[in-house]
């Protein structure tokens, strides 16, 4: 089975938020449900300044702290390695939000449950709809999605070529890799 992962190249990110809003439209989310959050960095001093925007979202960790702390099993790692939320089991205790080192889990104020990036590119790709997920939406091709176990996949090749790394090292065995 494929081991899905994503690569985000911040050298190509213009901080335009298109991925966030596309994600919300794609997944019919509330305006407050931001599955992608951004950190902006400014380095150097005037006038020699560089800027970087780092989009962060569920890293679909192999050691997922959210799943470890969830008291009901609502947060879990699926057979395909995608970290999921079983909404019916979620009691809204927010332990998972506190445990997530990336702070990318979002409380749904309407349902009282917690949600986050679903790697919806999987369903878009397998169904052939290629809907406007973050990967499809990105204007600059900063995001690549694919099978980390397939050495011939675009993402594997790009990780090898760029030495892309998880955002926080080996912390949780994240499957989202960054070029910075």
């Amino acid at each position: 089975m494929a081991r899905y992962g994503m690569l985000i190249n911040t050298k190509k990110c213009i901080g335009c938020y298109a991925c966030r809003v596309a994600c919300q439209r794609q997944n019919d989310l509330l305006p407050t449900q931001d599955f992608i959050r951004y950190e902006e960095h400014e380095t150097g001093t005037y006038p020699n300044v560089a800027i970087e925007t780092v989009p962060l979202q569920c890293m679909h960790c192999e050691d997922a702290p959210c799943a470890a702390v969830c008291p009901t099993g609502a947060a879990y790692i699926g057979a395909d390695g995608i970290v999921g939320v079983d909404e019916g089991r979620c009691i809204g205790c927010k332990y998972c939000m506190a445990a997530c080192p990336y702070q990318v889990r979002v409380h749904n104020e309407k349902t009282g449950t917690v949600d986050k990036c679903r790697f919806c590119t999987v369903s878009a790709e397998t169904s052939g709809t290629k809907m406007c997920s973050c990967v499809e939406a990105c204007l600059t091709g900063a995001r690549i999605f694919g099978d980390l176990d397939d050495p011939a996949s675009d993402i594997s090749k790009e990780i090898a070529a760029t030495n892309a790394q998880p955002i926080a090292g080996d912390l949780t065995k994240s499957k989202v890799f960054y070029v910075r």
Partner: protein
Amino acid sequence: MSENAITRRSFLAGSAGAVALTAAAGYMGFDAWEQAHADDASGGGETKTVHTLCNACSSKCGYTAYVVNGRLTKLIGDTDHPYSKGKLCARGYGYSQIAYSEDRLTDPLKKNGQGKFEAISWDQAYSEIAEKVRAIIDADGPQALAMVQDPRPSGKYYTKRFMNALGSANVYTHGAACNLSKESGMTQAIGTGSYSSDVANSKMTMFIGRSYADAIRPSSVVALQKAHEKGAHIVLVDPRCNNSRVFADEWVPINPGTDLALVLAMSNVLVTHGRYDKEFVAANTVGFDEWAKELAEYPPEWAEGVTGIPADTIARLAMEFAEAAPAASIEPSWRGAFGCSYENSGETARAICLFNTLLGCWNQKGGALFTPSVSAGKLSDERFADPKKPEGKQVGAAEYPLALSSMGTNLAAAQAAEDGTVKGMFFYNSNMAAGYSNTAKLAELLGKLDLMVVVDVQMSETAMLADYVLPDTSYLERLELPEFIGGKVPAVALRDQVIDVVHPNTRPVDRIFSELAEACGVGEYFRFGVDELADAQLQTVGLSLDALKQTGTAHFPEKEFAYGTAPKFKTPTEKVQFTSEACEKAGLSAAPVWVEPAVMPMGDELRLIGGKQAIHSHTQTANIEDLMQITKDYDLTRVWINADVARRLGIEDGDEVEVSNTQHTGRVRAKVTQRMNPTALYMPSHYGCSSPDQHTAYEVGLRQMDFVPFHLEPAYGGACTQEAVVTVKKVGA
């Protein structure tokens, strides 16, 4: 049912595997959602796709709308649309929700004696407006009527036709507060209001006050990225280090309002060192010697003192341009720094064209191009014949003779309400009162009108001032006229109707102005449907409405642009004009010279500059929940202040500050940053909504135009939107 309908069966056939996969993961993906709705779709549920054009900004990117059971569910940029190229920006995704906004206008409104709006019937609205229109025409003639509109495919046609049918020439775009000065200035030099920089193929491109990454058109972002990845030298000249920095080699933090000095000094370097295309200049231009003489006054050492850019840098940039020419240009910009911002904006635009002329880059690969366009031919059906050309000239044309008549100076029209020269004004897709100039002054001027009619989808600040507000359908609920798009391969694209009308008592723009014309006694010019006219226009270019509905976009490859020879310039001399008689007649220098901004910051004052954020378009999108939530999550209403200046003023990042000048005082938080020129304060141009009926946007942030004095650029008529200085202090300090 749409001709593009996907049957439920065919849609699901390909996705059954995904349904199982995603269902097991415990959330409802699109396919699962589809499946779920398949069962309860008693109303004959279907998925259909419709091609439309986004309305979140002027680019009007083409996309495919997916509609499930009558509701818009997904948007995917059309790959063959020249601007979207398969992508949309955040605004495009977000603004699609305007159709379902809870703050939509749903009925015609009339302001009563107490100043409150009450709902009236369409018939009453039309007959009362028509009565007032006739009274104004009877007393003062049709030239006492004016229209302001931000052009959209149907809107620009119907508004103009309506005014011309009434006999008025006073049709204005939003241009005076957008790109009027730029387009008018360029016309004086090269005979046309703009050109395209061939960024992707360039060796060097300089952007002045424009950021592709903040005012997004997907194709432009792609071109910039391509240039960067190919190693082109990309220079950003901007008081603010904007988000295009990621794809730029250097940021040149110019003092705002002084771009003209930079261009003059770079021109000086090229001429002084003989590093310009002498052959091109000799063959294709007039007035070079006169300009060259003027340029002697503007060496880099002079410009350093004005622009804040070291003389060495200016000289280096000029020589780098000379090396890269002809695959180099200064990008034409849009609104940015010289669309309408300063006392010298039109002259800046003119000088930029002349600088590009020195590079010999016109129509050269990587240079500055005049790309072809196609338009609808003459229509044989008499119903489409144009009304008689109005006899008068646009109000403001005499005072601002360089303003292109295709745009006009809308502020001059508003100003003419003061003495009653203009008595009735119509607005379509225009929020003049909040976005074009000083808000208090505009409210005062528009308050003097006998008749003010606003057609819009939400209660804008302009609508609040109106006597009558007529509810338009959103762009998703109507077919519009075809939109012709110039480019390397010119194209035409269609905004088709995506969803049924959401609010039954709203009407599409074509119908509103046709019915209004009927009520005003000029209905004979509107005896056709928008579909009939659209088809007739498309037939003249070998297409049909049905055909374009299928594809959304069609191209004209036989008109494809070819690099090479210089074009015939559409100036009076048919050459590039280093000197312009019209400019001289309008009181300017024949060849562009340095013009001081109207105001300069003194002491602790900072110049107030505006500019787009990637998630908003002017004031139009602030009430969209998806987009405003981003503003709130990231505190994007903050004003940007240079870190050294902030330290001097005792302001720390995130502090609440008071921004104040002779026009207005307001409070907002500050972003303390290395990304700002020390003489400027940046205030994003989208906020400070004062319409309580826009529940999401109301009173969030400050409004730039509250601080901008009412002042028009001489000769060009631009709004001088950055001729404002303010002081800033920490609240409670």
